[in-house]
């Protein structure tokens, strides 16, 4: 049953993505100033939204884990963090390709770019920390605390860097301004398959994590003899 649901969800995601790609590439006109490259926004922005949604769910499940001590929430936290990191990386890479085309540079220390990078580093640290702890309950407890610290820190980082950069104006500012409604619609429409993909990945990863923990427990049990 679970397998079928995941299969159906991924099929819907794939079909929606195909439909969106068709509309994006055939029906929607090129953006006036940026030309064809502007279409990257339909993946760049939903990836960022999905990443932050993932980190938010990680925060919630970490708090629930600390209250309930139910290992299921630890598995959920690690699954959404990993998937969030993957979408965050997709956001950074697509942004760099876009930046190379429009700004002529791969990277600029703009508040959004910098804070996304810091965010990725924080959650990459989360995964590294998990690797370094052997005891499952200790691992769950410590990484839940880190997840809370990281989530509280990210908005402070964003606003402090924004503050700092606006004190020193940069030639490169976030372009766009207002966007045509058809572009907006596409942005939200394309978020649906991206989120579905994220949900399927989280479900698979969570199951993996649960099985992994069972194997670990069996191994410890076997060592007891």
């Amino acid at each position, binding site marked *: 049953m679970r397998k079928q649901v995941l299969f159906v969800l991924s099929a819907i995601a794939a079909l929606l993505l195909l439909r969106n790609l068709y509309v994006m590439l055939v029906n929607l006109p090129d953006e006036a100033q940026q030309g064809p490259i502007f279409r990257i926004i339909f993946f760049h922005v939903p990836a960022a939204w999905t990443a932050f949604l993932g980190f938010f769910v990680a925060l919630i499940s970490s708090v629930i884990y600390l209250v309930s001590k139910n290992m299921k929430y630890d598995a959920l936290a690690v699954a959404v963090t990993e998937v969030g990191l993957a979408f965050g990386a997709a956001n950074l890479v697509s942004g760099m390709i876009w930046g190379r085309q429009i700004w002529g540079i791969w990277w600029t220390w703009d508040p959004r770019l910098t804070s996304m990078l810091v965010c990725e580093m924080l959650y990459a640290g989360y995964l590294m920390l998990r690797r370094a*702890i052997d005891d499952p309950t200790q691992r769950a*407890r410590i990484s839940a605390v880190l997840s809370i*610290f990281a989530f509280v820190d990210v908005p402070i980082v964003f606003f402090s860097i924004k503050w700092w950069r606006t004190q020193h104006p940069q030639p490169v500012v976030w372009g766009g301004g207002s966007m045509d409604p058809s572009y907006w619609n596409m942005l939200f429409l394309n978020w649906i398959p991206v989120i579905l993909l994220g949900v399927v990945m989280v479900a698979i990863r969570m199951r993996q994590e649960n099985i992994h923990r069972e194997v670990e427990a069996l191994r410890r049990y076997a060592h007891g003899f």
Partner: protein
Amino acid sequence: MRLFFRQTLTIALKDLRSEIRTKEALNASVSFSIVILLLFSFAFEPTSEETRLIAGGLLWMVFAFAGALILNRSFARELINDCLDALVSSPTPGSALFTGKALSNLVLLLVVELISFPVFGIFYNVPWVFQLPSLLVVMVLGTWGIVVIGTMFSAMTVNLRLRELMLPILVYPIMIPCLMAAIQCTTALLGGQALTGDAAPWLRLLIGFDIIFSILAVALSDTVLVG
């Protein structure tokens, strides 16, 4: 409440006493910060006017790196003879244990800073004496930010195999707002401005960071230490 303060003070004094007797972390940290200050002279022209513009950044890099040495030892020193287990099972709550450790780390790191700061001033020809009271305020606030995050993560990583490596990887990204605010304030002060001028929002950010993470760390310290 009074009991909490007494327990905190006992832990802090215990840590300071054992540090004064061995001077392990303090010696390492002071010599490390002076070595970094020496290395900076090869990275840029030490006597140039620009030094003053980047002075805040340089100093807080030194403080953050030197701080990692002290913070690494903070909980690790309790591993010998299972002292950490004894501390955790004592009637002292995790929050008092954490706050005491953080206070002693604050004092130790401030000592390192008060030694390396004049050395920096002399080596790089940056006048600092005229702003001393404001600088001290910034130093205490910035150092508390480093210490509150660092002590928390020191407790979290104490049982890890790669403790010395994990701590810097985890704490520096979290400290970014605190370091940035401290850098801005210090640079403004060394440039002859007052804290109430352009640097005022940064001072507020620094205070805000300290308050938010102090509350969070004290609230979660029992979870980390006792479980």
